[in-house]
C-alpha cells in the first residue's frame, strides 16, 4: 500500500493506451492496473477467481471506471463497490464518453465520487487526466480503511 494504485476499468485498448499516456504525461507515476471488463474488475476488487490470493484490504487509491464494459457494465460495477463494506468508501471516478444526463444522474445516485466525460481532443484529455490525478491522488484525503 506504499505505492498508490490506480485501477482503470476500460475495455477499449486504445483508450487504455491513451489513458496510460495521459497519466505518464501528467507525471503520475502510480501503479496502473487495468481490468478489461466488469467481471474481471470485480474479481480483482473482491479477490475472487484469478485474484483469490490477493489481500482484499489492498485497495486501489482510485478507480477510473468506464460505463460501457463487456459482461458486467460500469453501473453494476459501481453498485457492487458501494454495496461491499470493504470497498464502499473507495473513490470511484467515472471516466466515460457518455454525456447523457441519465447516465450522469444514475452514477451519482449510485455513489460515484466524480464524473468525467472523455474529450475527443487528446490534449484536452491529457489536461483532464492531469487534474484528476492531482485532485484524487494528491489533494484528496484518503478514506480510512474499513475494519
Amino acid at each position, binding site marked *: 500500500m506504499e505505492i498508490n494504485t490506480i485501477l482503470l476499468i476500460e475495455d477499449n485498448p486504445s*483508450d487504455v*493506451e491513451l489513458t496510460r*499516456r495521459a497519466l505518464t504525461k501528467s507525471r503520475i507515476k502510480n501503479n496502473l492496473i487495468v481490468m478489461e471488463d466488469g467481471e474481471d474488475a470485480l474479481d480483482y476488487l473482491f479477490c475472487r477467481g484469478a485474484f483469490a490470493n490477493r489481500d482484499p484490504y489492498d485497495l486501489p487509491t482510485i478507480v477510473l471506471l468506464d460505463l460501457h464494459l463487456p459482461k458486467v457494465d460500469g453501473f453494476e460495477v459501481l453498485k457492487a463497490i458501494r454495496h461491499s463494506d470493504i470497498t464502499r468508501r473507495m473513490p470511484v471516478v467515472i471516466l466515460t464518453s*457518455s454525456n447523457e444526463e441519465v447516465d450522469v444522474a444514475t452514477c451519482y445516485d449510485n455513489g460515484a465520487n466524480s464524473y468525467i466525460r472523455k474529450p*475527443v481532443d*487528446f*490534449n484536452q484529455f491529457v489536461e483532464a487526466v492531469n487534474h484528476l490525478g492531482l485532485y484524487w491522488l494528491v489533494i484528496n484525503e484518503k478514506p480510512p480503511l474499513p475494519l
Partner: protein
Amino acid sequence: MLNSFIAGLVNNATMLLALVLVYETVTPKGFQNQLLFKIIQGVLLGGIVVGIIANASVLWMGAIFDTRSILLSLAALFFGAIPAVIAGLFAIFIRLCIGGSGQVTGISVIASSVLWGLVFRHFHSRYKVPYGVREFVSLGLVTHIVMLALMLLFPKGEGFEVLKHISFPVMVIYPVVTIIMGLMLSRSQRVKQERLMIARNAENYRQLYESAPIAYQSLDKDANFIDVNQTWLKILGYEKHEVIGRNFMEFLSPESLEASLACFARFKEQGFVENVEHTMLKKNGEKIIVSINGTIMRNEDGSVKQTHCVFTDITQRRKAEKDLKSIEWMLSKKPTELQVTSPYGDLTRLNTERLILDSVGKDVLLGLVSDFLSLLDTSAAVYEKNGDYALGIFASSWCQYLDLASRNLCDTKDNARALASGKWHCHESCWTKISKLAIETGDIIDQECAGGLRLYAVPISTSQGIIGALNLGYGNPPTDDATLSEIAAKYQLPIEDLKQRAGEYLTRPPFIIDQAKHKLHIAARIIAEIVERKNTELSLIKAQEELNSYFNNALDLFCIADTDGYFHKLNNSWTTVLGYSLEDLSHARFLDFIHPDDYESTLSIVGTLKEQKEVLSFINRYRHKDGSYRWIEWRSYPSGKLIYAAARDITDRFEYQKTLQKSEAKYRQLVETAYEGIWMLDRHGTIVYVNDRVKDMLGFSREEMLGKSAEDFIFFDEVEDHREKMQARSRGISGRFERRLLKKDGSILWVLISSNPLYNDLGEFDGNISMHTDITEQKVAEEQKRIYTMSLENQVQDRTAQLQNAYKELESFSYSVAHDLRQPLRSISGFTTILKEDFGSILPLEAQKYLSTITRNAEEMDFMIKALLELSQLERNLTTLRPVNMQEIVSKILDSVLDNDVRSTFMINIGDLPIVMSDYVLINSVWQNLISNAVKFTLPKTERSITIDYYRTEEEIIFFVRDSGVGFNDKYKEKLFGVFQRLHRKDQFDGTGIGLAIVKKIINRHNGNVWAESKLGEGSTFYFSLPLQDET
C-alpha cells in the same frame, strides 16, 4: 422537803407535757365514727392521767399533787365532754385506789377541772376563734384557784396546812404549764384542722372534676393521654385503662385526622385552643363531633409538659343546626316552575324507542315527575329501556350547574355524540351507572353520583317486563375539600365556585326525601300502568282494524243474517258480486234475491241452521242487479237466531270450464302454427310436446323427439347451463337466453329461447314451455364481426409495438452515436497527437500537415455528432412552458458571445423584449444560434450592427435578429433550415450547418414559425414567431 415536792411537781408537769406530745402523735386519725373516736381519745387521756397520778409528788401520806387538773381542764376544753369525762373517771378510779386524806379533795379537784374546762369550751365555741394565751391564763387561774379552795375539804384543818405548802407552787407552776400545754394543743389542733380543710377541699375539687358535665383530657407533648375524667370516659364509652398512654389521634375519625394533626401542632405553638372541632370515634364506632378548649402547661425550659383540655359533645347541637337548616329550606321554599328545557336542547328528541314517551306523553310524564320534583327541588330522569330519554329535568341548582359543565366537556354540538362520548359525567352516572343497572337487575338502585349527590333509581316494570327506569337525585353536595377538589378536577370547574354552591345548598329534611322516594315509586307504577293500558288499547284497536279490514276487504263474501231470512251486515265484496250497494242489501230479505229454483233448498238450509247445525257446503243462485244470477257457495254457522256466513261467488268457475275448452283449442292452433319452435318439458326435462316448427328447425320428427330428454338436443357444453335453467323454472323464474341446439345433420342451430314454468292443478311445478327463435344467421354475422374486430385490435397493437420498437431503436442508435462513434474518433485524435509528439521531429512537413488534417477532421466529426445528438434529444424531450424573460436571455448571450473588445466595434440595438411562455432551455438555444450566427457573419464587415427586437400580430409575437453581415442569396433561403445545409464555404465560416435546423425544430415545437430575409452583402434578418398565449 418542800423543795423536793416542788421538784416533783415540775417533774410531773414535764411528764404531762411529754405524754401529751406522745398522745398527739399516736392518736389515730380519720375515724368515721366520732363517738368511738372520742371514747378512744378518752381512754388514751385516761392512760396519761393514770400515768401522771402514779408519778404524783407526795406532800405527805394521802396528800398527793400532780398535774391532773391541767390535763383534765385542757382535755375538756379541746376534746369536749366525752373524752374529758372518761379521763376524769380514770383519774377518780386511780385516786380512790390510792386513798388517803386527800381522797375527797382529789376527786373534787378532778371533777372541778373537767367542769371548768367544759365551761370554757362551752362559752368559747360561740366565738369560733382559736384558743389563745388569754383563754389558757384565765382557765389556769380559775381552775387552780378553785383547786386551792377545794383544799379546805381536807379533814381536820389539814387543808390550811396543805394550802400553806402548795399555794405558791400551784399558783406559779400550774397556770404556766396550762398555758404551755394549751398552746401546744392549740397549735396541733390548728394544724390538724388545716390539714382537714385542705383534704376536704381537695376532695371537693376531685368530685367536681370527676362529675363535671364537661369532658377533660390531658395529653403529653406527643398527644398521648395522661389523664381523662369520668365524663370523658362516659362520652366515648371507654374504661380509663383503655385510654391512658394511647395516642389522641387513635380516637379520631379518619377524615378529621389530618386537620387534627395540624391543629395539635398549632396548639402546642400558640399555647391554647378555642372551640376547635374534631370528629372523634366512640368505642362502638359512632362518630361524635366535639368542640375543644384548652391550654398548654410548660416545663421551666418552656417545652410542653402537658395539655389541659376540655371538650363538649356538640353532635346533637350540629344535628339540631342541620335540622334547623332543613326547616329553613322548607320555610323558604317557594313553588317553582319546572325548567324543562336545557341550554343544549331537548334530549327526548333523540328518543327512538318512544314507548314510554309516546304512551304516557310528555305532559303526563312532566306532571308525574313534578309531583315529587316540586317536593324536593331536585333532578329527575325517565329512561326508555334502551337508555333514550323520555324526560330529563334538572331542577336543583347543583345538578344544573354540573350537568351543563360536563355537557360542555363533550366538545360537540351534537347531543347524540355527546351522550356517546363518555365525558358527560352526569349522564354517565344517571344512565350508565345507575338507571341502566336498575333496568338490568330490576332492583332499586341507590348510589352516589359523579356530582357527589345520591341517585335513587326505580325500574318501571310492566307485565311485559321492565320497560325503563325513573330516578331522582337527593342528598347534599359534599362540603369537604377532598371530595370537592375531586369533582372540580373531574368537571374542570373552579373549586371556589363549587364550594360556594355547596355552601349555599339547603339541606332537604329526610322525611321530605322519603316522601319524594315514595312518590317516585308511585310514579313508576303509574307510568307502567299507562304504558300497559296503552299497549292493550293499541292491540285491541289493531285487532279490530284487522278484523274490519278483513271483513270489508276480503275477496270472499261475508255476511251476518238471521234465520228469519234477513241480512244484517255484509262486507264490501257483496256490492261487486251482486251490483247492489251495501245500503240496499243491509236489512234486506235475502230470500228475495234467490233464484226461484233454489228457493226451496235454501229454506230447508235455513231450517237446518235454525236447529243450530252448521252448513259447510251449499250452493244457490242470487240475482244480480242486472237480472243475471250468480252462483254462490256457502259455509254457514248458526248462533242463536243469527247466521254467520262466508260465501264465494263461483259463477266464474262454473263458466270457466267452457271458456277454457274454447281457448285451449285456440291456443293449440296458435302453438301448432307458430313460426317459433315450441316445446314443453316435464319437470324431469323430458320433452312432452313439440310443435311442427321444431321439426323444420332441427330436422327431427316429432316422434324422434317426444319422450327424449331435452339434453339430447343441446350442445354438450351448455348442458350444465340447461340444468341450472330448469332449476330456476322450478323456482318460478322465467328466462330469456341464447342456446345452441344440435340439428339432425350435426350442424348447430342458434336459438333465442323464451322459457316459462308450468304448473299443475295443485299449483306444483310441472315443467316448462319454451319458445325457440332461430337466430343462427344473426349469430354467424356477429361471430364474423367479432373476429374482424379482434384482428383489427391485434393489428393496432402490433403497429403500436412496432412504433415503440422503432422509437427504442432510434434512441439506442443516438446513444451509440454519442458513445461508440466518439470512441474511435478519440483514438484517431489521440494517436495522431501522440504520433506528432513522439515522431514529429522525423516526419516530413507534409506528413505533419496531414496529421493536423486528420486531427481537425476528427474534431469536426465530434462536433457534428454532438450537434446531431442535440437535435435528436430535441425529438425525445418534452417542452415545458413557463414565463421566460427574453430580454434577460438575449443580454446574457450577447455578453458570452462578444467579449468587450469586439463588442465595442458593434452597434447593438435591443428592443424592450417581453416575457413569453416557452421552454427556457430550448428558447435559450434558439437565441444562442441566431445571435452567434449574426455575430459570425457580421465580423468580416467593417460596419457592424445587430438589431434584436420584436413585434406583435393578432395571433403571434414575432422576434427578429437583424445584422449588417455578409447575407446570403435569397433564393437559397428554403435550404437554410435543413440539416447540414450550409450556404457558405467551410473555409469562410466555421459551423456544422445544423444550428438553424435546431432553431427550426424548437420553434416548430412551440407551434411557431421561422424564416429569414437577406440580400447578399447587405445583411440578413432572421425571424421566429411564437403563438400569443393568454397573458396569464
